[in-house]
């Protein structure tokens, strides 16, 4: 028995050594991508890019925030060439930590201004609008709020959900601070809390909460409900924008950037150019239900047209969404996180 076990251990050590040897060899024409977006969405695009260009892409999937922290920990020694994150906050934090290289202007010069970073260190891949999801059975047309600020009124007491720990909610609070000031934002946060707002884990759990009757309204990103509707047309929830220009309709983005010091800059630029191409953009809007960053792709029937979104969205520069620390301080002051 013990001989077998010892034998097994030795075998394992040999195998481990073998792995070491294999993984130390790295082909030069390989691009390494750290992706905070899920594999099911990213992989089809990677496969098309590989067959189109002959460039190999190694992808490390993970949670956006964890990968952003990892990139900081790795510093100059990172094997990553490109990062693709879920939200502007993560991209901003990497830019601030000086981990992103400047992109060639030709990549983003013809995108609408809401999808560009002013510093040119990263660029939006898709747009994701903040919106409210509601129960058509328990909410009458006249009860639909015009502004996110209305939700502190007595008629919404105990009926609204939000996700204070969620990145896209925090980006929305950052935008609110920028537009209306810290004081008014804190007031709103505290008034919401006093009004019995229910805290959820993330966007999809709020959509489910509305369907299940736990809440009547939820503050979410636009693309979750369409995914539920795609499985069940009768799914008992609907969503709508606040009135045009309301901060509750903020357009956040998923973004991408090139890691500083990469030896594969050319391939990295080519990859980002592909993500912004009509072909990839059409896939993102049709299959993933997010907004394309360009208007020349076929519209997803589940989504409102891009022009309407651009109209409804408040005018916020994406770089303004970088001040997460101030937002977290505020959320802490209101005892929400």
């Amino acid at each position, binding site marked *: 028995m*013990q001989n077998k076990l010892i034998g097994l251990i030795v075998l394992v050590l040999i195998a481990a050594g073998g792995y070491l040897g294999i993984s130390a060899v790295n082909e030069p024409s390989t691009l390494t991508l750290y992706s905070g977006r*899920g594999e099911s969405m990213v992989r089809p695009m990677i496969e098309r890019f590989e067959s189109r260009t002959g460039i190999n892409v190694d992808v490390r*999937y993970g*949670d956006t*925030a*964890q990968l952003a922290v990892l990139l900081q920990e790795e510093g100059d020694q990172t094997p990553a060439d490109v990062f693709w994150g879920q939200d502007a906050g993560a991209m901003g934090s990497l830019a601030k930590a000086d981990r992103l290289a400047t992109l060639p202007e030709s990549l983003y010069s013809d995108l609408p201004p809401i999808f560009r970073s002013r510093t040119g260190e990263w660029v939006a891949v898709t747009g994701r609008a903040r919106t409210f999801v509601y129960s058509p059975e328990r909410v009458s047309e006249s009860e639909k709020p015009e502004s996110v600020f209305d939700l502190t009124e007595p008629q919404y007491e105990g009926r609204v959900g939000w996700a204070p*720990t969620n990145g896209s909610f925090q980006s929305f609070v950052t935008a609110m601070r920028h537009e209306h000031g810290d004081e008014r934002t804190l007031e709103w946060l505290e008034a919401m809390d006093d009004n019995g707002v229910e805290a959820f884990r993330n966007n999809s759990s709020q959509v489910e909460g509305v369907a299940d009757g736990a809440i009547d309204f939820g503050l979410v990103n636009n693309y979750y409900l369409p995914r539920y509707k795609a499985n069940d047309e009768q799914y008992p929830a609907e969503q709508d924008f606040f009135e045009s220009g309301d901060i509750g309709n903020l357009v956040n983005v998923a973004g991408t950037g090139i890691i500083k010091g990469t030896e594969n800059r050319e391939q990295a630029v080519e990859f980002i150019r592909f993500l912004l191409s009509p072909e990839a953009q059409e896939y993102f809007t049709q299959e993933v239900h997010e907004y394309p960053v360009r208007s020349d792709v076929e519209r997803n029937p589940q989504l409102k047209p891009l022009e309407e979104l651009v109209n409804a969205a408040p005018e916020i520069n994406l770089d303004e969404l970088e001040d997460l620390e101030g937002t*977290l301080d505020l959320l802490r002051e209101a005892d929400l996180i």
Partner: protein
Amino acid sequence: MAQRAPLHILAPALLVAVAMVVPLGYLGLRAFQADPQTVMDLVFRERNLHLLINTLKLSFGVLVVTTIIALPLAWLVTRTDMGHRRLLTILGVVPLAVPGYVMAYALIGIGGHYGITAQLFDWQLPRIQGYWGAVAGLSLYTFPYLFLNLRSALLGLDASLEESARSMGHSETAIFRRIILSQLMPSLMAGWLVIGLYALGDFGVVALMRYEVFSYAIFNQYSGAFDRIYAAWLSLMLLAIALVFVMSESVILRRRRLASTGRGVERHAPPHQLGKWRIPAWVFVSVVVLASLGLPVVILAYWLLMAPPPLSFFLEVPLVFARSAVAAMPAALLATAMALPVAYLAVRHPSRMANAVERSAYIGYAIPPLTLALALVFLALNTVTVLYQTLALLILGWALATVALAMGPLRSTLMQMRPSMEEAAHSLGHGPSSTFFNVVFPHLRKSILAALALVFLFCMKELPITFLLAPTGYTTLAVTVFSRTSEGMMAEAAPFAAAIMLFSGLSVALILNREGDRH
């Protein structure tokens, strides 16, 4: 009577302790970079106290519920004439393979306006959430930690103690309380400790159940602020709470002697006749199995049927499983190999230092996994860069996180073993290593297998360490399931989640089958 520990025990045990200090060192390094004022604001918040109380309430609830499930179950499959004991044992372990968030989704999905019962039977149950939701969710897949520990202990129990008590006229209840329960104490404590520490650090279930605990604070710092410096402070706070757990276990267990002394041959008790209790026993077992395995299976089937994915999804599953197992199996062996000398040192050569070494093994388990992974990233990049993003580092990370898990069953069996056997071997001229391999090792066979099973299942569904340490392009089943559910693509996640449960169940069955009937 404690002799100095022989070198072949002492050296590897110390090595484990040193390895555990690495993440602590990293935390210290990062914590040192912080600005004191911000630390004060972040650490001494009233809300932290509130979160802390919630955390303790949660841990307590989970310990009570898991004990109510695991103790009777372990007793039934070891000490009674209940049939199908091996099958029931496997069914009692497989819930460990259920990812926490899948269990939470399963519980949440039952009730509510759009819940399964409302959809299928037009019968709306209240939505399960909050404190009780979190307790139920965590208990239903962590009770096997306790079950496996208790089972190892019950199998090693010396029947002669009970028999003497019985012959002295003690009632069955008194025997259970005074003898069996006190013999089970080390394994109860070991199980409680790993479950308590798990409940302390869990974020997945509690977040979905919407019950706010301390892990919220850490999660927010990493995930909301993309920060690793202040997160280090919060991790240190969590470790401090974990330390209280670990120390209280060690205080309770101190000065216990479990092995029988004197003459007589160790024997195993004949099984209790269940008699009229047979039906209630089967009802209990069925409820446990239905809740812990039935629920997640139902939710997975429901996701699958809602929107069946293409066949190619299913073809991919075995490949991804093989990839996960290739790393999980060596990690299980490594963790068990690391736990063995530590447990042996602590039980056979107790001393202040042995105690400290044993306690240190809990660092890897109690530390937030993301912190542990970052520490290893830091270590690899600053020492042996070639190790970075190799499977070897992932295996090491998993092993550091699970040494404490593997230690539980080993330690309780060692505590039950009489040192006189080893002494006899010595006097017969066996050297220390010959004694260890020929006398101690065969006795530990079942506990070693239990330890392997515990670690293997942990690794199969582990996420944060895998995310950070695995080679680029290496995805495990758990990673696939997680990324799909978090995108709201439940149907695409279901086959992979089912595969974790199915294949892990089969692997555990294989491992436990090696137990044989030899004692």
